[in-house]
């Protein structure tokens, strides 16, 4: 008998029946809402990082830990459809993943347009040079959103 590949082990771990409680539509959508909340809190914390870096570092660390756990639960709730390679998925999961990525692309594009509009508005309003916190948030938040958006969109779907 051949030993399972890394992909097969990952697929088995994400399909673990112990995570069944996260796989109801309600649980998945609650996890998506929690992750959105954590992203918002992260953004707010970055605004204060310049004024009191040490005071912000502790809640920021907690947010990052919660973010990792939340994302792990979310990936288990979707059985990793959005991250596993094609040979670990069947045709229905493959189709679902395609739909999720198409929707995530549209949402991501919309968010990017909003961010660019905010930059233009900032320039037009002549609010001056943004601080380090705002710049860090403007760079890190889109990266984090891009990282989790396909998982969030897949989890939000009623067919995952």
């Amino acid at each position, binding site marked *: 008998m051949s030993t399972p590949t890394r992909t097969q082990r990952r697929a088995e771990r994400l*399909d673990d029946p112990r995570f069944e409680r996260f796989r109801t539509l309600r649980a998945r959508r609650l996890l998506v809402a929690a992750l959105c909340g954590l992203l918002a809190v992260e953004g707010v914390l970055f605004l204060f990082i310049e004024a009191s870096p040490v005071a912000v570092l502790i809640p920021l660390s907690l947010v990052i830990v919660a973010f990792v756990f939340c994302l792990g639960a979310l990936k288990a709730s979707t059985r990793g459809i959005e991250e596993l390679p094609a040979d670990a998925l069947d045709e*229905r999961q493959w189709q679902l993943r395609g739909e999720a990525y198409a929707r995530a692309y549209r949402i991501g594009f919309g968010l990017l347009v909003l961010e660019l509009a905010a930059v233009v508005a900032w320039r037009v309003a002549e609010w001056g040079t943004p601080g380090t916190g705002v710049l860090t948030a403007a760079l890190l938040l889109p990266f984090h959103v891009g990282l989790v958006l396909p998982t969030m969109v897949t989890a939000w779907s009623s067919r995952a």
Partner: protein
Amino acid sequence: MPPRKRSNEPQLYNRLTLLRTERGMSRQELADAVGVHYQTIGYLERGEYSPSATLALRLAAVFGLPMEAVFSLTPFRTLSEQVYGTQESS
């Protein structure tokens, strides 16, 4: 939320639940036999997912039946209707 279907996509009826139960197979066993996730068998049985021709042929092969005995574009007659010739009251 009901599963989304393309407006022009016809409903595909199937006898998967009946055939699987008749043969004493679990969803997992049938899924393993055709190489899909057990959840997909549930979606197929509820008519919430239409399989590809390849998967439909594989499923029919597991039951040793032609594809048209397992899948149809028109509703199948119920077992009681076939055995006793009675119509199901709607």
